[in-house]
């Protein structure tokens, strides 16, 4: 039915589609363009120079040599990975329990998901005071704990959707064969939802990687993350746009790659599994 479209309609379709893509991807491409741009071309008033310039690595050079960028990247990586491991250890069994037995009659699951409505600022102040008393401010431990709290309800809910797709008959067959519940969980159910575990883990990794408010409030130097470093480039007296772009270019690269491979799951993940895109 669509092949009957006239040439004019088809051209209009492709023009609009191209504009949509340009609007969505333009700013992302701009980051990479700016990252390789020499300083004098960044601060030019000339439109032509925005595109015609001799690419340089000076921004990356400054980023690594004048700022603790590598250290901050390492902090971000460690905090994201460790918190995600904790989240999965807690969320996988809980989601299985909710999906198989509806533990707590739906109320517990609702309480779990409601933590995601929680404004981060509500939790920030109590934690700030506790962490200060425990001497945990500006440590990676503090961020690991906060991100664990931040992601665990989401992970439970998303995994819940994956567990519900596992047919209960398989488990009943194993029960009759004399398997204990724990062995069924470990040997039969977990292998079946490995794709779900992978998807959920990537989401948790990305959110920890991107998080700003907690990282900004709870770290100063030692545990500073990349988003906090990049935020500091703007607002200083001479704004370091080139360095900022170089930092952004590196730090968004993993999420762009992940987003590309995760496309099938992004809609499902962002709607907590309500829409299977």
């Amino acid at each position: 039915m669509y092949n009957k479209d006239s040439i004019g309609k088809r051209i209009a379709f492709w023009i609009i589609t191209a504009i949509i893509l340009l609007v969505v991807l333009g700013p992302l491409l701009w980051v990479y363009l700016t990252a390789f741009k020499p300083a004098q071309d960044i601060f030019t008033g000339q439109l032509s120079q925005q595109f015609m310039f001799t690419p340089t690595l000076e921004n990356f050079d400054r980023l690594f040599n004048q700022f603790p960028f590598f250290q901050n990247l390492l902090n971000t990586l460690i905090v994201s990975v460790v918190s995600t491991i904790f989240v999965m250890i807690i969320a996988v069994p809980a989601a299985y329990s909710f999906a198989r037995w509806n533990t707590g009659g739906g109320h517990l699951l609702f309480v779990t998901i409601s933590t995601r409505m929680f404004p981060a600022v509500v939790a920030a102040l109590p934690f700030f005071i506790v962490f200060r008393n425990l001497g945990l401010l500006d440590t990676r431990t503090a961020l690991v704990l906060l991100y664990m709290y931040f992601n665990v309800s989401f992970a439970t809910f998303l995994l819940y959707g994956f567990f519900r797709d596992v047919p209960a008959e398989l488990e009943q067959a194993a029960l009759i064969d004399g398997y204990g519940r724990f062995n069924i969980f470990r040997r039969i159910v977990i292998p079946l939802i490995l794709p779900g575990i992978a998807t959920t883990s990537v989401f948790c990794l990305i959110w920890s990687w991107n998080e700003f408010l907690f990282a900004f409030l709870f770290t100063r130097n030692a545990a500073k993350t990349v988003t906090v470093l990049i935020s500091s480039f703007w607002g200083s007296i001479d704004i370091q746009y080139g360095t900022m772009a170089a930092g952004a270019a590196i730090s968004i690269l993993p999420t762009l790659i992940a987003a590309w491979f995760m496309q099938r799951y992004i809609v499902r993940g962002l709607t907590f599994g309500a829409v299977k895109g």
Partner: protein
Amino acid sequence: MSTTKNDDVTINNVDLGRKPSVWEVLSSEKYFKWMLIIPLLLVLLVFMIYPLIYSIFNSFFDADLSGRVAVGLKNYKDMLRDTDFWIPLRRTAVVTVVCIVSEILIGLGIATLWNRNFKGENVIRGLILLPLLVAPLILSIVWNFLLEYDIGFINQFLAAIGIGRVKWWAPSGALFTICGITVWQWFPFSASVLLAGLKSLPKDTFEAAQVDGAKGWQVFRKLTLPMLTPLIMIIVLLRTMWLIRLFDPLYGTTRGAVNTELLDWMVYRTSFVYFDVGYGSTLAIMSLYLTIIIAALMYRQLIKALDASK
């Protein structure tokens, strides 16, 4: 209490002929489901219930980081009289409505446009999802740079095509610039959800409608839109919850200046810039109540819409 011998030794219908170990009891049919969620319950207790109670407690005190004095409901009374509270609250409402309406309209448009088979369909649908997983803070700083008055690309482009430079961060328009950045990041979300919805609609219903002579607009209003309602409700619900606490785009652009202070920015400023812990807690609790009330109201509508669509 009398327990028969049989109760002690039967786990998962297997007669062990001895007293079961702790592990065997925990992984039995009766206790296993509870054992699985204990870690989650502990985390929720420590990380959700504790801050909540602590904040409610603090909201009845005049407190800073060094000490506190009980003041009863003073913080709540102050808040209701504080124009510094009502203005950010109203701005938050404006941002939430403007962003959600724009995102859904743009999303509907794109979903309708792409609801067909075309070359490179999957690649294009994948490409527009890219901004969704990039840090909002970084994207807002990038936009701040692009919208800079003199050296920003957008203004240079607008000047070159004769429209002229725009003061994006003027007090009258800065809030809408922030809305624009937010909509830019999130319209791919509503577009993708609605496109997934359109693709899953039964084709024969539409063919039947066409045979009956229904026009494009009628089909959309009477057929497509009602079927998409549950999905639109999901988008509205989720986006409201996220937009009420918009923070990162403010930090990346105006930092709450030039008439852009929103609710959560005010909480942040009161608690972490002035360290007025008592009042900050009061505002935080209000922000939470607001989210819960709105979410609960919309959740009910969503359930209704889901029932109606069945």
